């Protein structure tokens, strides 16, 4: 079975006065595992709901392999959906739950039993078919919900924060299971989450949604090294923002002595903001190297397990640095060299927020 590519074009949905989703355009490659990431209320669950057919979009279109599916009602879409709560039918046994979709399609009992057993095996719950729903743990319930969706061999698998109700250790196991199921079957998967660490760990690509629209789409690494937008950078934990100007391929900070040679394409001369992650800043040395290194004063240092959180003041600019705990010791008040490697800096022109 060949995998399905999903295309969202100009999707929008408004509830009352609030626009939950606006102008959302996104392409998901066939067979990809994409995390739809964003804070609460950013519209990611609504997007999922529109993909599944439970909500009708106000504007825009959804294509599977180039064919619009908007006219298809939810019950006819080749989509599997796993919710935050398992939503297992309480009056049915585990096996009947897993076989529900097949029964709705009119599949015969013998064939159903065979596929149910096989699916339960793949989620490591073999032999639990006759259990009642009330006798299961949270992790088991979600695995059954997964099995119930996957047994129908959907073209697209949607998951809405499916592991958020489970404890941490269980969550890791479930992510591994999900990844394995995906890799075995090549189903295009969309995984909604608000947890950035989870998105980075489990997905091939991340689509970041902020305020109802797309704020970045790429590999997890790209969000760390080259975020698409300032908002995306902020969501991923960047707090060092340095205002200044770009001219001739060089960024000059306004209220400090920071100069960085920048080679980002598409950044035009003019006002700009430079962002850099705390762990990318190097502390050390005593000299100033134009273009990368400058001198600053340590104003605070706090031990945080794997690293020291060091606040450094350069002119009127404060930078937060995550300094390796096993690195060069740092004392408060000392003047120290602060290196901002150009490849770790991202510069945004002010006109593009």
């Amino acid at each position: 079975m060949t995998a399905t590519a999903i295309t969202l074009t100009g999707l929008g949905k408004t509830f009352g006065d609030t626009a939950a989703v606006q102008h959302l355009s996104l392409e998901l490659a066939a067979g990809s595992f994409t995390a739809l990431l964003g804070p609460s209320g950013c519209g990611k669950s609504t997007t999922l709901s529109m993909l599944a057919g439970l909500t009708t979009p106000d504007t825009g279109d959804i294509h599977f392999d180039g064919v619009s599916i908007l006219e298809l009602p939810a019950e006819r879409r080749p989509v599997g959906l796993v919710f935050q709560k398992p939503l297992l039918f309480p009056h049915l046994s585990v096996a009947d739950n897993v076989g529900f979709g097949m029964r709705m399609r009119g599949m015969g009992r013998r064939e159903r039993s065979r596929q149910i057993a096989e699916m339960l095996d793949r989620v490591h719950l073999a032999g639990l078919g006759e259990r009642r729903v009330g006798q299961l743990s949270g992790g088991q319930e979600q695995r059954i919900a997964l099995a119930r969706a996957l047994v129908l061999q959907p073209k697209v698998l949607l998951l809405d924060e499916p592991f958020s109700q489970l404890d941490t250790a269980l969550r890791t196991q479930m992510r591994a299971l999900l990844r394995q199921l995906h890799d075995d079957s090549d189903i295009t998967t969309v995984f909604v989450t608000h947890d950035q660490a989870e998105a980075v760990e489990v997905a091939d690509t991340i689509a970041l949604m902020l305020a109802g629209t797309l704020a970045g789409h790429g590999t997890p690494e790209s969000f760390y090294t080259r975020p698409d937008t300032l908002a995306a950078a902020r969501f991923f934990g960047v707090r060092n923002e340095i205002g200044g100007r770009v001219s001739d391929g060089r960024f000059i900070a306004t209220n400090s002595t920071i100069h960085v040679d920048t080679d980002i394409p598409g950044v035009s001369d003019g006002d700009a903001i430079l962002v850099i992650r705390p762990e990318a800043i190097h502390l050390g040395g005593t000299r100033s190297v134009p273009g990368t290194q400058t001198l600053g004063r340590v104003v605070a240092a706090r031990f945080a397990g794997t690293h020291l959180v060091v606040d450094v003041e350069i002119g009127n600019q404060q930078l937060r640095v995550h300094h390796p705990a096993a690195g060069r010791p740092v004392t408060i008040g000392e003047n120290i060299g602060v290196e901002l490697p150009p490849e770790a800096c991202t510069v945004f022109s002010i006109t593009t927020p």
Partner: protein
Amino acid sequence: MTSSAVTSSGVVGSPGTVGRRLGVAVLIAGALLPLVPLLVWAFAGQWRYPALTPQQLSLRGIGLLTDPRSQIPQALLTSTLIATTVAALAVLIGYPAGRAVGLYRFRGRRAVQFLLLAPVIVPGLAAAVGLQVFFIRYHLADSATGVVLVQLIPTVPYAAIVLAAAFANLDTDYERQARALGAGSLRVLLFVTLPLMRPALLLAGLFAFLISWSEYVLTLLIGGGQVTTLPLLLFAAISSSDTTAAAALSLLIIGPPLLLILASTRLLSTRSGAVIGMGRL
């Protein structure tokens, strides 16, 4: 009250279809229709067959409601006094039992549940016919006191049931916190538990009041015709040929329960347990 944004952002079945609206309209008509002739008869002076509207309107029926000769004002007073007494006593007596059933798991809990539900469901007359001899003997028959006592049969356990459901949802950590802050048992009760239980207390009292207010058979058997409550008067009026009087009296009888229920629709939450006895009213 959906669990995830995915389902709450969608609508399962569209609300505005014509068939659905028509169906609801029929339901509403059915719910209101039987009340229409009642309302009209209360203000009818003369309304003979086959007229669809009264030939003559009159306020005689309404006037009876305040006329002491009709005994209605006295019965109103009697009904109100009895119902409020029963409501207060039911909540008072049912409160500790509600706490026990709601907060604790103990052996015999099932039996207690049965003993609390049975007097609500089993018709009162089954017990009242057996009791009457004793009430006569102890001079409780033909008195309001006797009527109050016998009306405790359905109301005390009912109050206990409503309160038990509320206690099951009570977080006892509040009480423990109060104790840890130095409050004694009485203070904990007055300043922590009772305020938290206030909606349930009101609900239990409300339904005990309603049960007592509408009660006929128990009042008849034990009151012996000497204790005249509004339902007894209505029964007599229905059996007479004065339809206007009966209709007007009915409006009076519906009044307080209607006001009380509408005022407390917020309290009629789904987990309150009060729903059980509502079919009895």
